[in-house]
């Protein structure tokens, strides 16, 4: 299956030649159940990848392996040419380049919005407090909620919380952003405010991998769309061909089920 090897020219990125993320023959088992089967994927700098697929297809597990929230058992996860291994300190160092946004936001409820943002810069990067705070405020402005800085996460709406979570991930100035179903836990009225922030981020040139079922977002933003099923990457294509002319029957079935209610 070499559908997942796409010629360089077809991706939007023109600047770099080396992939920032490389998954090489990555496999993972939960107990004796294989969730990921020999995943091969290369993501280039500035690329926006949207991952979709039925539940249980392994798409969340795959992006969680990219920052090693889940540890894979075979193959390699290589970020900027450095592979995750057994060295905890080195893993933590590689991880700093990767920001992650979760379905359930996972903000720290006992800290104010501002403290949520400044925590990692202060403790991990040892940035002075005032510097971290001005960085945090500029990011809150970027996600359009600077006025909520002193509130606590549970006082905000879901959409606002998710935007705080995006700003929190950006606070570490990551090179790569992973989004694990960022809009699935939101009320319908709040989905767009989060997608707008993500589109702005994509336009700024951030390397992004987004697990989502927001197909309009995928069509508008993605360089490549990945369809996964049963732990495998079934099909990789730019959004145009992917939506208009999918090559696999499984992809067609999936698309017909999520696009026609």
């Amino acid at each position, binding site marked *: 299956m070499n559908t997942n090897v796409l010629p360089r020219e077809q991706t939007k990125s023109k600047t770099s030649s080396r992939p920032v993320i490389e998954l090489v023959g990555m496999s993972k088992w939960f107990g004796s159940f294989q969730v990921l089967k020999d995943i091969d994927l290369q993501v280039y700098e500035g690329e926006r990848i949207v991952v979709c697929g039925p539940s249980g297809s392994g798409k969340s597990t795959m992006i969680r392996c990219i920052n090693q929230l889940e540890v894979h058992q075979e193959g390699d996860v290589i970020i900027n040419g450095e592979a995750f291994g057994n060295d905890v300190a080195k893993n933590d160092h590689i991880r700093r380049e990767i920001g992650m946004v979760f379905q359930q936001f*996972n903000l720290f409820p006992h800290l104010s919005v501002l403290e949520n943002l400044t925590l990692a810069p202060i403790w*991990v990067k040892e940035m002075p407090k005032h510097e971290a705070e001005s960085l945090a405020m500029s990011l809150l402005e970027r996600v359009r909620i600077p006025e909520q800085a002193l509130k606590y996460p*549970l006082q905000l709406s879901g959409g606002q919380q998710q935007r705080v979570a995006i700003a929190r991930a950006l606070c570490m100035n990551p090179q790569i952003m992973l989004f694990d179903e960022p809009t699935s836990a939101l009320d319908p009225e709040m989905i767009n405010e989060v997608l707008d922030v993500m589109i702005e981020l994509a336009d700024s040139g951030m390397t992004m991998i987004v697990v989502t079922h927001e197909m309009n977002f995928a069509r508008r933003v993605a360089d490549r769309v990945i369809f996964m099923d049963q732990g495998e990457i079934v099909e990789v294509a730019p959004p145009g061909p992917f939506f208009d002319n999918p090559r696999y029957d499984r992809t067609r079935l999936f698309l017909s089920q999520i696009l026609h209610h």
Partner: protein
Amino acid sequence: MSDSTLVTTDDVDKALVFKPKDARPAPPSTVGVIGWMRNNLFSNVSNTLLTIVGAYIVYTFFSAVLNWAVFNAVWEAESRRECLDLVGRSGACWPGVAAWMENLIYGLYPKHQVWRINLGFLALIAWVIPLWLPRVKSKVAIGISAVLIYPFLASYFFMGGNKGLVWTLLIALGVTGFAWVWLTTLTEMRYGLPFTRFMAGMLGASGKPQEVQVKYGRFSMLFVFVIALVLVTQWELQEVQTRQWGGLFLTLVISGIGITFSLPAGIVLALGRRSNMPLIRILSTTFIELFRSVPLITILFMFNTMLPLFLPVGVEVNQLLRAIVAVCLFAAAYMAEVIRGGLQAIPKGQYEAADAMGLGYWQSTTLIIMPQALKIMIPTIVGNFIGLFKDTTLVSIIGLFDLLSMSRAVGEDSRWLGLFIEPFFFVTMIYFVFCFLMSQYSINLERKLAAGNQR
């Protein structure tokens, strides 16, 4: 739709404008005291009946207690016989309790030395007062100093005796700590700077780089320490054996140390039990399960009678110390399970978010996980503290005269022979006051912490 919320406009093509209705106040019969009583006490016939019967039971019980304890009680008498002649058994005989009051509170501590106990407890209160004062920023440092440094000062106050070099230094450290707490409190309230920073400014280092300021600040603390050292060498207290300690004082010492030790030890054990390292996990689990599956009485007996058998001849560990160690270890094992419960209630997403941001194990534990775990477990933690406070009555079984055993001694005094109920009643009240205050404080704390975190 008479008071329509929809206002049509002239233009048919324009959308209708939605205007929300104004909110009205709740019906008067459902709010306020009357509303509450109507809803909760007299909502229907059976509830009304229950309310009346309940009120009657409460009234009979309290009137009987009040009659015995206050209205029929004897307040002045020389002996129990006199009390019985006056009111028989229908009223309490308080003079017996009053005559033993000093022993109930201080045990057999020499009378002319009792001021040391009072001073020791006042010092503790003074030490922690700044924690509740506004504009004091070094609260964490003050709290830690109260746990780590105050005990040196207090133990010399209570024990006295020949100091020796090590104790002299430790006591001077205690005095310095106390001085630092209040100097910092005052400078922070007045100038917004901790004492060392303030002194650096006073000594003319305000414009100089941070390291120089820190040096000047340290120097000023060293100066305070030297003064304290000189004072401490000038001053010696008479030795009081720990077997003379007793009453409420002993209860507070044992439970105070047990409570202060159990929380940090419990945190360490709980983290150990959840550790990925097999050795640490097995050791923690073994310790917790061992101490949790044995009654406190048994542990006290073990430490009291069996420990000396294992120690080399001639080495003697103070009996009070043995009891305190036993209580501490027991309390730590229980606390560990409480903390572990709190840790398990933290969603996995919190760990993942901390990991994803590159925080290490200790950073995510101290900054993210533990604050949340402790917060949800406050009621249980304080519940454990209260339990421990009452469990210290068991030390009477190994011959220590805590509050409860002191109260039993009243009835064995020849003048007050058989006077048991009154001292027990008095002791009950003391326990009640302490436990009630603890539980109120915990409720208070919960409310304060919840305020910021809820809608």
